[in-house]
């Protein structure tokens, strides 16, 4: 998969800047044509410090990361606060944009892990996401979003307890004996209707909405929070996924490498996810049809940073999926991809105060969504927006009694 030069199409950073320059709220020094509108220090608004009163008239938010987490969080924050914060400026910084993000490679099936490990918060975020997407199903936007319903099978070699999400999805039930005849080797399973949200469609849809709202995009690898703070960002939203450790070491964050083959098999109309308690989640074959191609997978390698496709993994996926679904033998392989799931024992969704010289800023972390980013994204975006709101509240409290608004 080519990472290549910064080909962003409509949102190349130079054109993003020129779009930004049309926005009325740009500081005057942006006309100097510098790389970022915020390099002019005298215009920078700071959170506190001896320089003067906090002004809510300009609020600069930098979102790092343009996968599903970064883009949805940016949209959520904009939608909730642009009316309350008149000069809310959101900028997205990322080294990779669609179709080169982790979210683009994922099949896009809404399904959490089987075991929520007692993490009720994440189950609630999953539900919030499902309900939000379900509400969009009948809208004319659905096709453009890459959103559509998908039914299918979860297969096991022995009975297992029902999952935390059984009442979130539609029509959850156990498989009948006749249905199990479809899958020799599996003796137990579930059937339910869930949703598909294809990253390759959803991310452009989010991007378009963000552009319409005046959000600016920059293709740039951010190497430190300080870099953005120096340029005047008031709040940073850290949605850097698997590479969050480069900004701030996080021993709990690891890559969960996956590899998939995309095939042309339009006769497959259900997802089929097998489970093997010994090999662990996603290390057992799965078949997930999309709007055009079917994703074959079943690789989960913790700690492996290699984004190159492995011939051995290809063989594993192909053989196991053909064994699961013999009709796949006639399928034509069209594409192959490897990606790194941002694995963490729990999602990191929290505030942190970052000091930069004498000033400080708030960072909201929203990363570590493992193999369920699309599944949980909206719940996390809303939670991040709530944290953003609490920061705004605190800033209001820090304001002197006389308002200059």
């Amino acid at each position: 998969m080519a990472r290549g030069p910064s080909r962003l199409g409509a949102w190349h950073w130079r054109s993003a800047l020129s779009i930004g320059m049309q926005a009325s709220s740009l500081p005057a020094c942006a006309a100097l044509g510098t790389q970022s509108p915020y390099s002019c220090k005298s215009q920078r608004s700071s959170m506190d410090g001896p320089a003067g009163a906090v002004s809510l008239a300009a609020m600069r938010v930098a979102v790092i990361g343009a996968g599903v987490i970064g883009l949805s969080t940016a949209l959520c924050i904009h939608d909730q606060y642009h009316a309350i914060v008149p000069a809310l400026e959101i900028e997205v910084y990322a080294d990779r944009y669609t179709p080169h993000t982790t979210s683009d490679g994922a099949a896009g099936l809404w399904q959490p892990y089987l075991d929520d490990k007692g993490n009720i918060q994440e189950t609630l975020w999953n539900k919030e996401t499902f309900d939000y997407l379900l509400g969009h199903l009948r809208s004319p936007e659905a096709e453009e979003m890459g959103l559509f319903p998908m039914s299918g099978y979860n297969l096991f070699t022995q009975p297992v307890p029902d999952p935390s999400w059984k009442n979130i999805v539609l029509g959850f039930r156990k498989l009948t004996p006749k249905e199990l005849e479809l899958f020799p080797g599996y003796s137990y399973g579930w059937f339910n209707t869930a949703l598909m949200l294809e990253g390759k469609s959803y991310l452009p849809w989010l991007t378009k909405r963000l552009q319409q709202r005046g959000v600016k995009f920059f293709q740039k690898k951010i190497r430190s929070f300080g870099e953005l703070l120096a340029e005047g960002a008031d709040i940073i939203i850290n949605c850097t996924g698997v590479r969050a450790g480069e900004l701030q070491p996080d021993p709990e964050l690891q890559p969960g490498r996956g590899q998939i083959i995309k095939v042309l098999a339009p006769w497959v109309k259900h997802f089929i996810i097998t489970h093997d308690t010994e090999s662990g989640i996603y290390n057992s074959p799965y078949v997930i049809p999309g709007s055009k191609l079917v994703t074959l997978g079943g690789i989960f390698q913790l700690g492996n940073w290699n984004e190159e496709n492995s011939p051995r993994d290809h063989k594993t996926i192909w053989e196991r999926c053909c064994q699961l679904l013999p009709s796949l033998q006639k399928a034509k392989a069209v594409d192959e991809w490897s990606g790194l799931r941002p694995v963490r024992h729990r999602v990191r969704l929290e505030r942190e105060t970052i000091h930069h010289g004498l000033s400080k800023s708030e960072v909201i972390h929203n990363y570590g969504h493992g193999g369920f980013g699309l599944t949980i994204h909206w719940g996390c975006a809303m939670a991040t927006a709530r944290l953003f709101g609490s920061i705004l509240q605190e800033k209001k409290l820090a304001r002197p009694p006389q308002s200059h608004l």
Partner: protein
Amino acid sequence: MFWTIGWQSSTRNTIQYLRNHPALKFHQNWCGLSMSKPRIAVIGAGLIGLSAAVCISETIPTCSVTIISDEFTPNTTSDVAAGMLIPHTYPGTPIYQQKQWFKETFDYLFAINNSSEAPSAGISLVSGWQIFKTSSSAELPFWSDIVLGFRAMTEMELKKFPQYRFGQAFTTLKCDCPSYLLWLEKRLKGNGGEVHAKRIANLWDLQNNYDIVVNCTGIGSRQLIGDLKIYPVRGQVLKVHAPWLNHFIRDGDGLSYIYPGIHNVTLGGTREKGSWNLSPDPNISKDIFDKCCALEPSLQKAQDIKVRVGLRPSRLAVRLQKEILVQGEKKLPVVHNYGHGSGGFSMHWGTAKEAARLVGECIATLQDSLSKAKL
């Protein structure tokens, strides 16, 4: 010993004498039976003709099977249908019989679906919903325990269909045409069968070259054999490109439906009793599209919309029986296998098996007569 040989030669002479005697010439074809394979002509190359031919060629390998038809895929009535295995009830056929035919068809296609042949045969497994605007009676359809996972829809599921009060969710099979018909044809030829393009105006035209005729002419039976009990029920459908759809949706009234297949989605439809009109009606097309979009709004983005019209060969009961046609001295055994109306795909393999069984009975009867003639 001498005496035995003499007896045999005198028997041979007798057979020769009988064969050549003008009054007994009508036995000629039947005598042919014991010498070579029984020759079966199947009239009609739609789903019913092809499946019957394949079934006969497999259950009675000693016979030769030839399909004779004026229309072939993609121009048969079968090609217009979506090919969903959701039966319709024939008022004149006992329910246990329909259930048996459906089960045989379902099991047969289920096995193909689970094999690597599925894509070439055009077979796919599809889940979906049948929804009703009025609360339905508690009665389950006769096929509910044959399809997979049949159950009532939940409240949450019904929210997707705001105007509907009740529904059923299940998983069933679908046969896509022309793939399935082409696959059957290939199978028939693999078994040594032949296919001839020809219009048959009179079954007696076949008498010289065939021993038994299997009549699978669908709506054509009305003219071919004068069955006035069969009548067309016109169906107009749209075939569209909407690959993101993978669930079927069927209004319980049977008029509006969305059936996603391998390469296209069939949107329907109409049930116009007595209409022979094969020309598409643009007003009907618009009506179908609008109604289906109301069920599934994303269909607004469907591309490549094509319209097809078919005449369902409707009858109170499927005619599946044998008949000996007589014309003077001549006799022609016919096995009728037509009148499947809306339920062709759902019943085809069951009726094909029954037709093959009836052909077997005809062959036995002919061979009986033949051995009687020898004596």
